[in-house]
């Protein structure tokens, strides 16, 4: 009986997980530019991988009688790396496609760190365009 419940639960979690992973990937196709596309893989995919990992834990604990911590470690690594990756992609996107003037103000004396590296003297000149190279590949970016 316990085995049956566990099997159903594992199957359900795998289906849920793969559905979310699929939707996340679909978002990559559907959404119009990089900034919005970032939302697909950082979220929809987290739950997708999470559900599959929980399924794996249940499977090995109940059906194989062999509890494994590795899924927890994978989850932890995922939570550590996903925001960092998203942040770096976002920064690259800002550099290539967005001018500092297009962003909302920091409401501080200094600008956003991507354009106005910390430690340099003085605030960013208001008209400075950070995109110096490569020469305009796309007209003014997607935003």
């Amino acid at each position, binding site marked *: 009986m316990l085995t049956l419940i566990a099997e159903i639960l594992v199957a359900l979690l795998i289906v849920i997980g793969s559905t979310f992973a699929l939707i996340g990937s679909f978002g990559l196709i559907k*959404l119009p530019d990089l900034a*919005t596309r970032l939302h697909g893989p950082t979220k929809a995919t987290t739950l997708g991988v999470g559900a599959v990992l929980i399924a794996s834990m249940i499977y090995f604990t109940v059906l194989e009688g062999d509890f494994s911590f590795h899924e927890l470690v994978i989850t932890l690594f995922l939570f550590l790396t996903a*925001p960092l990756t998203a942040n770096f992609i976002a920064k690259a996107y800002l550099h290539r496609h967005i001018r500092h003037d297009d962003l909302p103000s920091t409401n501080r004396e200094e600008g956003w*760190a991507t354009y106005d590296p910390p430690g340099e003297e003085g605030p960013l000149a208001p008209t400075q365009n950070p995109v110096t190279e490569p020469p305009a590949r796309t007209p003014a970016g997607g935003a």
Partner: protein
Amino acid sequence: MKLHGRWLRHPLITLVLAGFWLLLMNEITLGGVLMGLFLGVVIPLYTSRFWPEAPAIRHLPRVVEYTLIVLWDIVVANVQVAWWILFWKVERLRPSFMTVPLDIYSPEAITMLAGTITMTPGTVSCDLSADGRALLVHGLHAPDVEETVAGIKDRYERRLREIFG
């Protein structure tokens, strides 16, 4: 010998690293515990320049509360973003950049907040102001920027301020 001051500047990191080593080993043995503790002492020493001062976690129960809230929000975020992707026309989404002024100071707290923002409903943190006092956040669907910013500050930043002081 002043053990605590010199060799164990970061007891919390030592414990986390030792625990992590045991998780990787997938079993608890005496050798594993000793090796984990050894790594837990050596790695913070080797990387001590990264940790000029010990991160102060003031309120451990709050950490548990925060973790549970964030996990729940991640589930909600997934369902919501999946819904938008599947059933909304792209034109209906109102993506926008917004500025979140920060009331927290410790680098650990700001990192936690930025990571949390990325993992939760329709928002990704993109950049930090050069003086480290404001976060640039991109929202997938943020028709009311002020409301979204107020939500982030009240739900996450307030709690992080209680945790990190």
